[in-house]
């Protein structure tokens, strides 16, 4: 079943800028250094108010001081997830050197994915409301907590009046945001600032997530997130994310900036919340749609960034889905999951994988899967140390706890055929 291409050939969507803020690094260089070396950054959850939770290990951003990157005026009126989005968007725009002033404001849009919203801000205002009364809820609650806050603030700060959107999907939403960016480019936009950032570690946000049996209850960082192994016991929550400048290919070429990668194909399916066995077929179909969309043969995939949930039946389903969709190539292609070193942050999780995929192609190196050693599936999972390679085409996979499956095909600078 072929996804319609039409104008797609004429207007390709390329990545020209990356902005990353993650537990293992603030800024692309720091993120790549830690990711390449497989340095792990999981740690005891130390957010005040979280001491008694059964989830003890998380990936937390340590070296990020929003005040150094964002005006205090904006910090006061936004939640941490938007602080991270504003900072990451800035980094991406700087990286791409997008000539914002030369473009029509209607030609540049913003699309983010958000699955946890402004939880810390919201908890403060809830405390005001129930502790002191309705008149103690401040005016910024109306714009800080909701899922659309980051897209709105990035759009206003940059003067971007183009297509603006927000998908509040679960983990797979990060890939959906990039697919939306690509669609807007097809429909005529010159550039879209796209990605996802999350900050879901505030106490009430964590309490809201404890119902997921997929969350790791392990007490030691080294044993908490071990996908594809017999010790798999769930996933570790994280925070942060990546924003990208996605640009129309011709425009990027005309201004002579390096093309970092092509968003070549996307596929999405749904197989139900926590029905991991069924996600096998769902993920395999999403991969096939994405490959077809990208006009990419399975053998062309040089590296797979796995969803790697860390739940035995989900890991098995993913390994089988890769085999189902890629055939014999599925057991030979290098697979990796850098997120075991810094956790999964809702919609932002796959955006960090996309950033890692772009960097892996650029640096000709497949980063390893931190903490993981003995793999119990038919997968060539890259473990222990980075593996030199020449990946020209990456497949990024993501599944959400509410049942979403998504696959994104990313080609290197050599490009689309």
């Amino acid at each position: 079943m072929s996804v319609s291409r039409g104008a797609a050939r004429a207007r390709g969507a390329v990545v020209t800028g990356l902005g990353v803020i993650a537990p293992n690094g603030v800024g692309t260089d720091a993120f790549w250094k830690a990711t390449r070396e497989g340095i792990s950054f999981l740690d005891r959850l130390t957010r005040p108010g979280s001491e008694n939770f059964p989830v003890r290990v998380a990936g937390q951003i340590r070296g990020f001081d929003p005040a150094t990157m964002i005006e205090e005026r904006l910090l006061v009126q936004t939640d941490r997830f938007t602080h991270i989005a504003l900072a990451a968007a800035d980094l991406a725009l700087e990286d791409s050197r997008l000539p914002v002033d030369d473009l029509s404001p209607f030609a540049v849009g913003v699309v983010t994915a958000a699955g946890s919203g402004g939880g810390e801000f919201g908890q403060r205002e809830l405390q005001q409301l129930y502790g002191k009364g309705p008149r103690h809820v401040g005016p910024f609650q109306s714009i800080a907590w909701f899922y659309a806050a980051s897209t709105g603030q990035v759009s206003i700060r940059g003067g971007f009046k183009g297509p603006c959107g927000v998908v509040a999907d679960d983990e797979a939403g990060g890939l959906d945001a990039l697919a939306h960016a690509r669609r807007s480019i097809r429909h005529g936009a010159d550039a879209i600032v796209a990605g996802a950032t999350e900050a879901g570690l505030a106490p009430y946000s964590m309490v809201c997530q404890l119902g997921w049996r997929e969350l790791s209850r392990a007490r030691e960082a080294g044993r908490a997130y071990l996908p594809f192994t017999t010790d798999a016991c769930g996933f570790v929550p994280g925070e942060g994310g990546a924003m990208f400048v996605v640009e129309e290919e011709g425009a990027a070429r005309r201004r002579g900036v390096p093309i970092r990668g092509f968003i070549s194909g996307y596929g999405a399916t749904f197989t139900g919340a926590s029905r991991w066995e069924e996600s096998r077929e769902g993920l395999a179909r999403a991969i096939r749609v994405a490959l077809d969309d990208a006009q990419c043969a399975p053998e062309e995939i040089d590296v797979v960034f796995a969803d790697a949930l860390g739940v035995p039946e989900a890991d098995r389903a993913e390994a089988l889905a890769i085999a189902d969709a890629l055939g014999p190539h599925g057991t030979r292609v290098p697979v990796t999951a850098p997120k075991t070193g810094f956790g999964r942050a809702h919609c932002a999780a796959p955006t960090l994988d996309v950033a890692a995929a772009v960097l892996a192609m650029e640096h000709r190196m497949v980063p390893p899967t931190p903490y993981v050693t003995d793999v119990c599936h038919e997968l060539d999972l890259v473990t222990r140390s980075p593996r030199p390679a020449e990946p020209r085409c990456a497949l990024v996979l993501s599944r959400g706890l509410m049942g979403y499956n998504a696959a994104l095909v990313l080609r290197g600078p050599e490009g689309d055929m």
Partner: protein
Amino acid sequence: MTRRVVVTGLGVVAPGGLGVPAFWDMLTAGRTATRGITLFDAARFRSRIAAECDFDPVACGLTAEQIERSDRYVQFALVAATEAMRDAGITPEGSGAKDPWRIGVSMGSAVAASTRLEQDYVKVSESGARWDVDHRRAGPYLHHAFSPSALASGVAELAGAHGPVQTVSTGCTSGLDAIGYAFQTIEENRADVCVAGAADTPVTPLTVACFDSIKATSTNNDDPAHASRPFDAHRDGFVLGEGAAVLVLEELEHARARGAHAYCEFKGFATYGNAYHMTGLTQEGLEMSEAINHALGHARIDGTEIDYVNAHGSGTKQNDRHETAAVKRSLGAHAYKTPMSSIKSMVGHSLGAIGAIELAACALALAHGVVPPTANYETPDPECDLDYVPRTARALPLRNVLSVGSGFGGFQSAVVLSRAGGAA
């Protein structure tokens, strides 16, 4: 080859109108559903009025498990989706759509599970006494409440959909955008059918308090039935509402092949940001006008062919002025000849849900040739000088209808629907 998209099913849960027949009857009668808040004790709040749904999930056919798992807004969506799928002749058991991998879902919500998130917060924080909340007091499905994706996920489970599923959250344009994205999903050949809509149930203390604090809501507490007064000179803010609507969007040939009835054709969609202010709107309406122009362009329809504008018409001073300016900018002199009404005068402003409810109203208007009125409109405002269809519905043959929306965050969206059976 362009794939055309038609609307083959409708389902609505609106204040004063559970189900499409009751909803349409209410709109055409010009009745209002705004009243004093009953969902909680609002005595200490500035605005104490809302358009609430008298909603009994059991009477609406939901199972005990669906009720336990789902926040109020998801419950609304499940009821609306059931009605829409039945109406379209598409059921999970098989009739209608053949391939579940070609059925998608796209649902919008601005504030998602605000009801349960707030109720459980009270328990785990001992009414705001502690920051280090006690997880042992949380309800069993709080994790579903925390995930806005539970909305589309719940509808997808109900529909037996395995295609692309998404939850859209662009503030008060969520409904238009979710349905617009569904249209694009079918247009791009990623699905043949999309169950698309929106739901929000924001009549909760926190949401009411935050609109209190920015003085966006009406304080006409003594006369709730007449509090929502879009475009009227005496308007004093919007009246919060709640609700859900679901539309079944279907590729034209797919619908024809199974002999489905179409309410209308979905022709065009566009959304832009105003990059101006999170809550403020410009006087000129330039960005909304851009969205209208692009939606018309997408639909290949000239502004002069629009026969009815379904307004955002929230009833705040700035919105109604902004929107009037935007419509005049896009439709020119034709704007003065085109009826433009706001159903928020009757069903309130249900944030993310309202765009879907308004598109359901537009589909019905096209199918019945009747334009719903703006209730409570009495005194003209010199800055709002269009034909707002005061108080009484108007019979009018309609070819093309435009629906617009604005949302916090600067979102400006426009949708064009056309009478079914027209040429490409």
